[in-house]
């Protein structure tokens, strides 16, 4: 194995080890979307009917509608927690060790992003398996189709998190990220309600959702889960991956 592969596997292994050692993180990563699915969706099931719309071929239950949005929520939270772990590494000094490597910084950051994306993928797969238990029927081949979409979304949101970590000086600032990044991104998207419903109630809100790249992550995953390819959503997410990837790697500050 060459030096770059050894380095990649080591970074991936470290992130996975750390993830499984932080049991509360693992638990909350699964409990959070399940609460939304079981409690929130059940409550709103009668109030929010969803008519036939692509990629669905018949009327669906609200629970089924929000599953792709919840997958994207898992990715969003994991990506932002990765940015938090960057801040932690910077505060604890581990970041110094990472950048004492003779391997290029851009490659090291790329490895970090891929590792975070793999963790997101793992959490989404576990969530989808649990969702099947509570009667949300996702076709088994949807899991396979969704892998690239989940990975691409995770890479984009991870890169966004990396950019944000430049502006977070202390771990305590994570509450700010929750209020100003995670919640607006999640609620101002098609994760919980279809865009046409939002358009009916507020046009300006609809336009905000249209310009929110998270909406396209949700839609890309939604179509992929039913074996379809949404070219518009995929193009937007791919564009975001490239822009945020370059900005994240180019502007990352290992030291505050």
């Amino acid at each position, binding site marked *: 194995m060459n030096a770059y592969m*050894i380095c990649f*596997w080591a970074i991936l292994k*470290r992130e996975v080890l750390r993830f499984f050692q932080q049991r509360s993180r693992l638990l909350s990563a699964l409990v959070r979307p399940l609460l939304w699915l079981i409690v929130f969706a059940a409550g709103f099931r009668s109030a929010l009917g969803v008519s036939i719309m692509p990629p669905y071929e018949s009327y669906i239950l609200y629970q089924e509608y929000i599953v792709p949005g919840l997958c994207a929520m898992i990715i969003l939270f994991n990506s932002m927690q990765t940015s938090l772990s960057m801040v932690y590494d910077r505060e604890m*000094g*581990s970041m110094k*060790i990472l950048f004492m490597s003779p*391997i290029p910084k851009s490659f090291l950051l790329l490895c970090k992003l891929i590792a975070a994306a793999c963790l997101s993928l793992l959490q989404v797969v576990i969530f989808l398996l649990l969702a099947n238990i509570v009667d949300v029927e996702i076709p088994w081949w949807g899991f396979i189709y969704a892998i690239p979409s989940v990975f691409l979304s995770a890479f984009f949101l991870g890169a966004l998190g990396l950019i944000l970590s430049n502006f977070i000086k202390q771990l305590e600032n994570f509450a700010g990220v929750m209020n100003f990044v995670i919640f607006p991104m999640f609620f101002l998207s098609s994760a919980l309600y279809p865009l046409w419903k939002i358009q009916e109630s507020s046009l300006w809100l609809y336009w905000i959702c249209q310009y929110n790249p998270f909406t396209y992550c949700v839609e890309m995953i939604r179509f992929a889960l039913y074996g379809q390819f949404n070219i518009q959503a995929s193009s937007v997410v791919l564009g975001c991956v490239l822009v945020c990837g370059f900005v994240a790697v180019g502007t990352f500050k290992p*030291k505050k």
Partner: protein
Amino acid sequence: MSITITDVTYRFKAKPVLSDINLSLQPGFNVLLGPNGAGKSTLLSLLTGQRTIQQGKITFADDDIRHDTRSIMAQLGVVFQQTTLDLDLTVLQNLTYFGALHGLSAATVLNRITPVLTQLALIDRLQDKVRSLNEGHRRRVEIARCMIHLPQYLLLDEATVGLDVDSRKLIIEHIRALATAQHLTVLWTTHLMDEVLEDDPLFILNQGKLIEHGVCHTLLAKHQQSSVFDLYRTLTQPQGLL
């Protein structure tokens, strides 16, 4: 394999932290002495590429830190003032992770560190989480870690501060032996006078300026002082406090 620092000035928000530093470190054990806030850690962060040089030049043999960073990093072992180990990983996981960042397989790492860890009395703690180790043991792990990639240069920033006498003695003797046996260029920064021997090349930094340098016993004779402590006090404290 020398380290040369030429006309280095570093400012933080317009305030000079280092001013016109010129020094050359030769293979062997070099001591950088200075009070807290003298600029020792800033100088170390410039030497390790953690901060970008604003003015002046730093070279490792013929490699310039600004242009040949990767080749320098491959030859540089560092122990930072703040512990940089991952507390949730085991000693072995920390060491193999570091080795991998230098492109070394776990087997190579284990091969190289076994004698070092035996020497540092850590071989039985390989599978222990770093969180369960005391400060002295954590430092020993960091010392072992900085040697994994067989560096030519070692930079240690106050590596023994806060440790008990036995741990300090073990670590400093280990580094001195390494410097001699492997012809390493070692920069040992400290503010603990008892770590300096009479034959050590000594560099004294105060308020961002290199105020004196030379072999310790020569400096003692030059300033007519009987101990490193007196020499240090004479050079670094304002006259009114003496």
